[in-house]
């Protein structure tokens, strides 16, 4: 029976009413923010718009490994250089943190008391000291390296100084293309062999040495081809000329400091995630697989890890996101990432703070969503499938 409250006692009406209220308040708040901002911008005579992106930047960025950057290039190009540098340190950092994190997580569970304790100390130290301090610590260590004129020489080809690590740069000649094609073909065929071998094992139980045959295909075949073609690759060695080394490949201390700090910091979290994942697999699984006579390495690879991954991957995704966002701290040591170049220098030279910040935020958002998207696909692929 309906009460005297009329409409309000109607559940459908009530839910629509409150949802409209929430949406309305949100729209009002948004209107508030936008109108205040545009009013203030106008009042302070601050020009707005996106045309500044096409203006020449006027300053130089020296760390741009993928794009050639000159001071006459536009602010838009500053943005792309920044995005690439952010991606560079994030991707390399994520890979290193994952490898280090998995190793440490497994070592932490080792029955060797000393090893396990050492990892414990490492984890507690690096995840409890602020990341910014770790970045600055690594950077201050790196700039205490010898000066460029007194560079340490390693194996006659590497030079280490506080300007970075210089190494020879490979120069590929025309024939090298065939070697590349060979490598790609080898990768495809080992993938096919792998599939065929699995099918055959399912059917007949016979095994095929997939690993060693793949290695042979991917490394040895292209290598032989490389020599047949007469080694179509040479090296450009760094040479001391004037103030700096010229030529060669260089890895800057700003990048090394960021890379080390990010991967070491995040690896500590990942190792705990890996440990939790492995411990979540019940003891009975290990005992049962040992009882049917599997080797230790097989138990890990075939029984424990696949089950642990289901627990590991979701929190691992959020660590990747954290690492990517933390890379914005590069500004502390002058690493030319997105925030430093476009969100810092361009912003300051043009005064277009709102536009620059909006672009930077949108970029981090898209990078993070992309990582989430792919990790979610991976996560779905390793979930327990009911047949």
């Amino acid at each position, binding site marked *: 029976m309906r009460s005297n409250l009329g409409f309000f006692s109607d559940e459908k009406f009530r839910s629509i009413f409150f949802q409209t209220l929430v949406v309305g308040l949100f729209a009002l708040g948004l209107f508030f923010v936008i109108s*205040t901002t545009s*009013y203030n911008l106008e009042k*302070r005579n601050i020009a707005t718009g996106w045309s500044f992106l096409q203006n020449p930047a*006027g300053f*130089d960025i020296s760390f741009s490994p993928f794009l050639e950057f000159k001071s006459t290039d536009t602010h838009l190009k500053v943005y792309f250089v920044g995005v690439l540098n952010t991606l560079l340190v994030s991707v390399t950092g994520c890979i290193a943190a994952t490898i280090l994190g998995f190793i440490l997580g497994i070592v932490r569970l080792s029955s060797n008391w000393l090893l396990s304790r050492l990892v414990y100390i490492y984890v507690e130290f690096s995840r409890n000291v602020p990341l910014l301090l770790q970045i600055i610590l690594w950077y201050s260590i790196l*700039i205490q390296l010898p000066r460029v004129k007194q560079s340490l020489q390693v194996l006659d080809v590497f030079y280490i100084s*506080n300007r970075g690590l210089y190494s020879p740069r490979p120069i590929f000649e025309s024939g090298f293309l065939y070697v590349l094609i060979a490598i790609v073909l080898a990768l495809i065929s080992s993938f096919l062999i792998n599939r065929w071998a699995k099918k055959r094992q399912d059917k007949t139980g016979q095994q095929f040495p997939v690993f060693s045959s793949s290695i042979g295909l991917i490394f040895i075949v292209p290598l032989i081809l490389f020599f047949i073609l007469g080694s179509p690759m040479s090296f450009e060695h760094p040479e001391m000329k004037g103030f700096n080394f010229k030529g060669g490949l260089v890895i800057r201390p700003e990048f090394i400091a960021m890379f080390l700090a990010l991967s070491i910091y995040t690896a500590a979290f990942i190792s705990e995630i890996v440990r939790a994942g492995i411990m979540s697999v019940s003891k009975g699984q290990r005992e049962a697989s040992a009882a049917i006579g599997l080797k230790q390495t097989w138990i890990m690879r075939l029984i424990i890890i696949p089950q642990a991954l289901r627990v590991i991957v979701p929190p691992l995704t959020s660590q990747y996101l954290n690492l990517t966002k933390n890379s914005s701290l590069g500004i502390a040591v002058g690493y030319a990432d997105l925030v430093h170049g476009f969100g810092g*220098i361009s912003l*300051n030279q043009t005064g277009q703070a709102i536009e620059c910040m909006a672009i930077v935020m949108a970029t981090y958002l898209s990078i993070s969503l992309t990582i989430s998207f792919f990790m979610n696909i991976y996560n779905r692929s390793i979930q327990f499938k009911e047949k």
Partner: protein
Amino acid sequence: MHKSIIWINLYIWYREAIFEKRYLNNYLNGENNMKKLLSIFAVLAFAFSANAGTLDDVKNRGFLKCGVTTGLAGFAAPDDNGEWAGLDADMCRAVAVAVFGDRSKVEFITTTGKSRFPTLASGEVDMLARNTTWTISRDVNLGFEFVGVNFYDGQGFMVPSALGVSSATELDGATVCIQTGTTTELNLADFFRLNGISYEALPIETNDEGKENLFAGRCDVYTTDASGLSSTRAAASNPDKWKVLPEIISKEPLGPLVRHGDHQWGDVVRWSLNAMIIAEELGVTSENVDAQMSSNVPEVLRLLGVEGNYGEMLELSNDWAYQIIKQIGNYSESYEANVGPDTPLEIARGLNALWTQGGILYAPPFR
């Protein structure tokens, strides 16, 4: 802020918004209730963002908020007693004296090269005296008003003496430490491009960071305003190990600035600076200012407020300029005490001498 002040300000802002027809028309015309509701919110939104005259704000607050560097000896840096001292710090104090007659009524707020403009634009400080170069884009596009020049500077280079470089054109391939978000960053790119030589920029945030990287050898060269180089060199443990190269690659007129549009406040800051320069021209110093009150030079009498009502025009007390000279000194006194040849910075007057003495320092007449 006190509650009653909030309400009074709200009322003032509300009236201000009422008079802004542009906005009013959009929101108050029309019968729609929703529109009326929105208009109230809109007025409130503007109320919290707009500000009354800066001079009134400063007077009501009881002290001046002045944006300075994070520490550049000679321009603005805490001295041995923890007191802010320097040419720019004196500029802040002069304005505080003009408004309150008290040199201590100023709060120094440190800003980096990057944070200085947002800090001023948002109203967090009333003025900037932060060795900031006057350029067209900052004056026009960023919405600021430079009220004058308190130091004529130019960009230079500093290298270790041991590097054996005697000119900036020999710096091909060098690594250069450069403060980001400055005009020097743009000049640097132009200079190397013009001379067809290459360099690697090492971006840094503060002067201290630049010092650290240069002294560690991470960069070969440090470039900033010549005055800043002198300041950095003076702070080195062994100044002789560092050399400032002869090239000056840019004009850097450094001066105090305020927000665009508040002309009354701009006038106060502009004439606080001019008063110090005029005092030097007229030979009025902090020591003889009392005796000068009975001078027979008409402009001195006008400056010191004995004749005329220039203080009232600025909505200040009539002895505002007298107080500046008495408590801070004239331009020359401030210069000699902070950056002159007898200080560790050892910067000769040069361009900063009066126009009558071979420099370009010039203030409009006080009449």
